[in-house]
């Protein structure tokens, strides 16, 4: 329900911002902006700079550590000492080699993360697109009640579902396989997916859909040829959102996959490594960046879509 608020405010908020960007600024406005910057300048800049540093330095420190080749350096001196010019020669890839090597096998977990994530993104989006089409363009009895019900399910914390689901999976003999992870992520992602995609779908002009129907196109043809192409940006937004959610998930992974190298994703393995090898920073730093490289890349490349997805709905799980 709070998603609704966000969709409302976000849409409302984003449009004028884009409008200002496209319009050329008048001279008066430019002067205003300058004045504003001057007014709030020294203190404001200092505070903003401090926040920016606080938000960057912790990550940077771990990144530097992951490239310090000598394990003893890492446990005996702060990472900032590696930045001194006389220590530059000591950087190396040893930590990554060891993290990915035969003993720690983080490469296997990386594969697991990919294998878990791809279907867990594709399947709920497809199902949600179909459901959103039904809610937006079909007439049937009980439509509104059903929509509110699916929408309201977003508030169910997934913790509430874990033990009964686990019991079912064990009964079916599926426990400990990729199938239960795909199934779980699909089911947990659906309420938000339906809600978001429905919101985007009702904005498609009614005439377009009706024209197609009058021309004799079936629902399937309308869905595939009229709706889907127009939904691409919305699909991209939700896909990134769901991708990051699944890739970064810990609870579902721990509950249904444990930490076997056969199916557990990186997050589950890393979380356990922190517990068992809490001060092995050479491994943890490299491991953390192995797990973060994909979401960071996706984030930097597709930030625009990510922001849209985030503004449109952040309540999940």
């Amino acid at each position, binding site marked *: 329900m709070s998603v609704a*608020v966000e969709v409302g405010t976000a849409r409302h908020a984003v*449009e004028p*911002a884009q409008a200002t960007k496209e319009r050329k600024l008048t001279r008066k406005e430019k002067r205003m902006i300058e004045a504003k910057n001057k007014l709030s300048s020294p203190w404001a800049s200092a505070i903003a700079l401090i926040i920016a540093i606080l938000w960057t330095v912790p990550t940077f420190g771990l990144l530097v550590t992951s490239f310090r080749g000598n394990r003893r350096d890492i446990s005996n001196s702060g990472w900032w000492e590696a930045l001194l010019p006389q220590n530059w020669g000591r950087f190396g890839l040893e930590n990554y080699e060891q993290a990915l090597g035969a003993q720690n096998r983080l490469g296997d977990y990386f594969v697991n993360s990919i294998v878990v994530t791809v279907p867990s993104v594709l399947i709920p989006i497809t199902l949600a697109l179909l459901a959103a089409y039904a809610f937006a363009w079909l007439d049937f009895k009980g439509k509104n009640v059903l929509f509110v019900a699916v929408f309201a399910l977003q508030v169910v914390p997934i913790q509430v579902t874990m033990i*009964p689901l686990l019991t079912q999976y064990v009964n079916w003999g599926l426990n400990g396989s990729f199938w239960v992870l795909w199934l779980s992520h699909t089911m947990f992602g659906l309420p938000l997916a339906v809600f978001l995609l429905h919101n985007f779908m009702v904005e498609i002009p009614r005439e377009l859909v009706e024209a197609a129907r009058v021309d004799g196109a079936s629902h*399937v043809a309308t869905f595939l040829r009229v709706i889907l192409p127009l939904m691409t940006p919305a699909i991209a937004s939700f896909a990134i959102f769901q991708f990051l959610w699944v890739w970064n998930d810990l609870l579902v992974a721990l509950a249904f996959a444990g930490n076997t190298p056969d199916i557990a994703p990186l997050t589950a393995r890393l*979380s356990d490594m922190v517990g068992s090898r809490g001060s092995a920073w050479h491994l943890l730093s490299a491991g953390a960046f192995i797990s973060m490289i994909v979401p960071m890349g996706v984030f930097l490349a597709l930030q625009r879509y990510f922001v849209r997805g985030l503004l449109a709905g952040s309540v999940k799980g």
Partner: protein
Amino acid sequence: MDLLHPTDALGKFALMVLAVLIFVAAMAIILAILNLPKRAPKWLAPVCFLGPTLIAVSFGLIYPAIVTVSNSVHDKTGDAFVGLANYVTAFTQPEFLIVLRNTVFWVVLVPTLSTALGLVYSALVDRTRFEKLAKTLVFMPMAISMVGASIIWKFMYDNKVGLLSACYEWFVGMFVPNAQAPQWLMNAPLNNFFLIVVMVWIQSGFAMTVLSAAIKAIPDDITEAAMLDGIGGWKMFTQITIPMIRPSIVVVLTTVAMTSLKAFDVVRTMTGGNYDTSVVANEFYTQSFKYNNQGLGAALAVILFVIIIPVIVYNVKQLKKAEDVR
């Protein structure tokens, strides 16, 4: 090919492709059924489009939620009915009282701090030359996992080589010779706040993004008029900006509150819930999966659910208000 437990990378990818193909085939069959008859009965289209989703959420959310509520009034194994005993345990045992206290810390502090930081930061960098870069930096923690963020911060807190410890020893060392950094994550109750810092670090980016969009939506003529009246800087921020984006602030507060209520990743990764740092979400995991105490775990999950409801009701009321104003 082993369809349940492939062990090598190739087998896993093959299984993944197979699963996707099976799914695509299933979808194709459903759409084909819908397309087949010339005069399809009226109920066929809704059933085909909506059926899979309804089955999935019924099985995955509704049915297990009902079972969990029933589990919560049964014992460890789910056999004997025990009434409200599990809830009594959760609300009276000393160790659970600490869990509840910590949860209150989290739910109050994380939203307020991250909203305040996100708001101040987005107002400060709004329309400056570095706006895009500045926002990306603060937003980045949203993209990485909470596990990753926990490792990043556990390293900051490391007693020997952590940056925070070094800063502490340098600063306090100016007054006290041979100052030793404390065990940040072991000394209760302060360690809770060091964990909360991590969650604030993660969530501020979200707050900043939503609030920044809201600030940009404030009509130019309002800020312009205020400026002509000689209002600027701090006064502009407190008297124009904040009242104008009030609905968005409420949304951010409640959303972050719900996220921090449900998240257990930070606690589980950084302290495992030891040293009096557990929260309800983490305790749910520990009781359900570590101690196999089904009844108590279920009760904790239900408590989570129940705490969320008033937050959402409040959120919906705010939504109505915001719409009325508009």
